[in-house]
C-alpha cells in the first residue's frame, strides 16, 4: 500500500466512523454524551416515612416518647453512632430486647456513612408516599399526579433506556409489594417515553410467594430452537396480520434472550424458595428484608446497570411506634446486607454506587394512638415530614463526608435521580428533556 492509498483509506474510514451513527438497541442514534463513573447504581427508596429524629438525629425514644427519653442509633450499620443502651425494643425475641448484631462487614469496614457521603438535611417535595416515590423516580414535583396513575413525567428508568441505550434487563425496579400503586412506577404515561423504555419489575413478596409457587413454578421447559423459535415465528406472523388492522401492543421490550433469562431466573428463585436457600439477611422477619434478599439475588444474576429497590415497612408508625423502630432497625440491617453482598461480588464490588433516600419523613408531633409500650405513633403531613436525608457510597462518592445539617438544608429529593443519571452518563439528556424540577442537581455536583 503506497502512502496516498493509505491516507485515502484512513480518511475514508475515519469519515465513515464519524458519519455513521451508533444504532443502539434502544433505537437512539448516539451514545450518551456523559461518561460513567460507575457501571452499576443501586437506588434504595428507604421509604415508608422515616423520621429524621430516629434516623439521622439518632434520638431513638428521646423527644418522641415522653415516658422513655432514651437516645441512640438504631441504624448502626448505615450510620455512625452508638446504639441505645436503655429500653431496647427494636430487636428480636420477646419484647424485641435483642438488637440485631452489626454485620461483620461493617465491624471491619465501618458504617456505610464512613464509607461514603451523607447529605444529612435534604428536602422532600411530598409528605405522602406515592407523591414521594414519584418525586424520586421522576426527579420532579408533579402537580396533578394522582394515585393509581402512572408517573406523568418520564422516570429515571426511561431516561436510562432511551438516552443511555440500556437494555430492558439492565434496568430493574424491585418493589416491596403491589399495593399503593407501586407497580405503576416502572414507566411513565409520557407519550415520548413510556412502556417501551420501562424497567423490568418484580414485587418478590408476591412473585415468589406461595401463590407464585403454586401458579408459576411449574413452567414447561421448551427447546429454544426447535420449539420456542417456531412458536415466536408464528406469533410474529399473527402480530403482523393484526398490525395491518392497526392493532399493536407496546411492551417493555425484553428481547427473546432476555425473556429466557428472566424466566430462568424465576425458575431458579422458585427452586431456591422451595429449598429455603434464597439470599436474605440474617434476620428476615418482614417484607422489606425479603424484598432486599431477592434484590440481592437479582443483582447477582442480571448485574443490571440500574436497580431501584423500594422499602415500606416503617409505615407501621401510623399506629405502632414499637413496630416502627423494629422496622427501621431491620431496614438498616437489610440494606447493609445488600451492600455487603455487592462488596463480595467480584463484578459488582468497586464498580457499584449505592444511593439511599427516603421518600418523606414523619410529623414532629404524635397522633393519639399508643402501642403496648405506651409509645405514641406518628403520621406524616407536616413540615417535619419534608425533612429527609440521603446516604451514598461507592466509587463516585468521597468517603466519610457529611454535607448539610439542621438549619442548613442542602439537596432535594429530586437530586437522587439526577445523581443516578450522572453516574450512568445521561445527566445532560435528562436536563435537556426539560421535565425535572428546576434547581435539581446531582448530589455529586453539590459536593
Amino acid at each position: 500500500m503506497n502512502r496516498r492509498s493509505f491516507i485515502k483509506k484512513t480518511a475514508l474510514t475515519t469519515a465513515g466512523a464519524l458519519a455513521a451513527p451508533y444504532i443502539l438497541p434502544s433505537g437512539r442514534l448516539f451514545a450518551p454524551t456523559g461518561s460513567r463513573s460507575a457501571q452499576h447504581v443501586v437506588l434504595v427508596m428507604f421509604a415508608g416515612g422515616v423520621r429524621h429524629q430516629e434516623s439521622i438525629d439518632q434520638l431513638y425514644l428521646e423527644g418522641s416518647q415522653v415516658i422513655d427519653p432514651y437516645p441512640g442509633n438504631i441504624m448502626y450499620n448505615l450510620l455512625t453512632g452508638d446504639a441505645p443502651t436503655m429500653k431496647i425494643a427494636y430487636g428480636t425475641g420477646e419484647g424485641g430486647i435483642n438488637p440485631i448484631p452489626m454485620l461483620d462487614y461493617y465491624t471491619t469496614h465501618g458504617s456505610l456513612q464512613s464509607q461514603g457521603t451523607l447529605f444529612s438535611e435534604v428536602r422532600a417535595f411530598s409528605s405522602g408516599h406515592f407523591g414521594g416515590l414519584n418525586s424520586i423516580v421522576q426527579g420532579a414535583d408533579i402537580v396533578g399526579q394522582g394515585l393509581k396513575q402512572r408517573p406523568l413525567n418520564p422516570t429515571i428508568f426511561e431516561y436510562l433506556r432511551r438516552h443511555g441505550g440500556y437494555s430492558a434487563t439492565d434496568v430493574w425496579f424491585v418493589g416491596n409489594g403491589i399495593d399503593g400503586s407501586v407497580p405503576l412506577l416502572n414507566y411513565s404515561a409520557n407519550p415520548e417515553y413510556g412502556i417501551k423504555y420501562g424497567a423490568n419489575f418484580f414485587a418478590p413478596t408476591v412473585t415468589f410467594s406461595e401463590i407464585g409457587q403454586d401458579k408459576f413454578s411449574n413452567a414447561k421447559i421448551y427447546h429454544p430452537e426447535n420449539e420456542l423459535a417456531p412458536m415466536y415465528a408464528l406469533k410474529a406472523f399473527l402480530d403482523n396480520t393484526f398490525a395491518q388492522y392497526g392493532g399493536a401492543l407496546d411492551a417493555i421490550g425484553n428481547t427473546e434472550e432476555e425473556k429466557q433469562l428472566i424466566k430462568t431466573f424465576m425458575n431458579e428463585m422458585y427452586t431456591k424458595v422451595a429449598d429455603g436457600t434464597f439470599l436474605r439477611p440474617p434476620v428476615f422477619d418482614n417484607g422489606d428484608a425479603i424484598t432486599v434478599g431477592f434484590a440481592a439475588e437479582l443483582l447477582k444474576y442480571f448485574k443490571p446497570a440500574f436497580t431501584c429497590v423500594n422499602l415500606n415497612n416503617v409505615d407501621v408508625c401510623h399506629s405502632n411506634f414499637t413496630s416502627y423502630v423494629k422496622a427501621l432497625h431491620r431496614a438498616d440491617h437489610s440494606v447493609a446486607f445488600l451492600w455487603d453482598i455487592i462488596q463480595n461480588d467480584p463484578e459488582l464490588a468497586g464498580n457499584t454506587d449505592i444511593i439511599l433516600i427516603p421518600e418523606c419523613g414523619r410529623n414532629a408531633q404524635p397522633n393519639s394512638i399508643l402501642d403496648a409500650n405506651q409509645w405514641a405513633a406518628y403520621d406524616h403531613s407536616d413540615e417535619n415530614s419534608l425533612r429527609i436525608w440521603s446516604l451514598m457510597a461507592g466509587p463516585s462518592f468521597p468517603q466519610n463526608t457529611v454535607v448539610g445539617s439542621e438549619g442548613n438544608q442542602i439537596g432535594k429529593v429530586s437530586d437522587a435521580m439526577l445523581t443516578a443519571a450522572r453516574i450512568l452518563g445521561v445527566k445532560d439528556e435528562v436536563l435537556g428533556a426539560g421535565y425535572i424540577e428546576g434547581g435539581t442537581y446531582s448530589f455529586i455536583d453539590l459536593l
Partner: protein
Amino acid sequence: MNSEKKNLISLVPTSPTCETKSDQTTIAALAALSAIAVCISSCKKEQVGVFELTEVPLVSTAAEKDKLKTNQQFVSILYTNLFQSAISGSDVFELDQLFQSVGDSEVAKEVLISNFFNESNVQLPTVAEMNADLEAFIVETYKRFFVRLPNEAEKAWVRNFIQSNPYMTPELVYFSFALSNEYQFY
C-alpha cells in the same frame, strides 16, 4: 270466529232493568250491526306473512378488536380456551396479583401458559389429529382463540408454516395464538 262474536255480544247488557223499548231496539240494532261487521271483516282472505332470517355472522373481525383485555379477562378466557371449563374466582384473583407483580406482562403470560400446558387436563388435539385435517385445525384454532375465521391467506400461511416445521405441535400453535397481540384484545 264464533267465540269472537260471543264476546262482542256479551259486552251488551241482555237484561236491562230501566231502559225503554226503543232503547232496546237500538241496542239490538247495534248488536246486529256489530255482528255483521265482524262477519264481513272475518270473511276476508287471510294473508299469510312470510318471515325470513338474514344470516348475520357472529364471528368478529380483527379490525373490531380495540379493547385491551384486563389481566382477569385474559386469564379467564385463556383458561376456558385451554381447559374448556371455567376458572375459579380465587384463581383469577391470585393470577391477577401475580401479573401485577411482574413488570413484563409478556413474560408473565408465557410463564402462565407454559404452566397451564404442564397440567394434565388441558384440552389439546394430538399431532396426528392436527395433521389429519390441517385445514379444519387451523379454522378451529382461529375460532377458539380469535373468535373469527381465518382468511385464505392466513390459512395458507399457517398451513405451510406447520407443514414446514416438523416440531410444530398443537400445543405450540395454541401457545402462539395465546401470546399474540390479537388475543390480548377484544
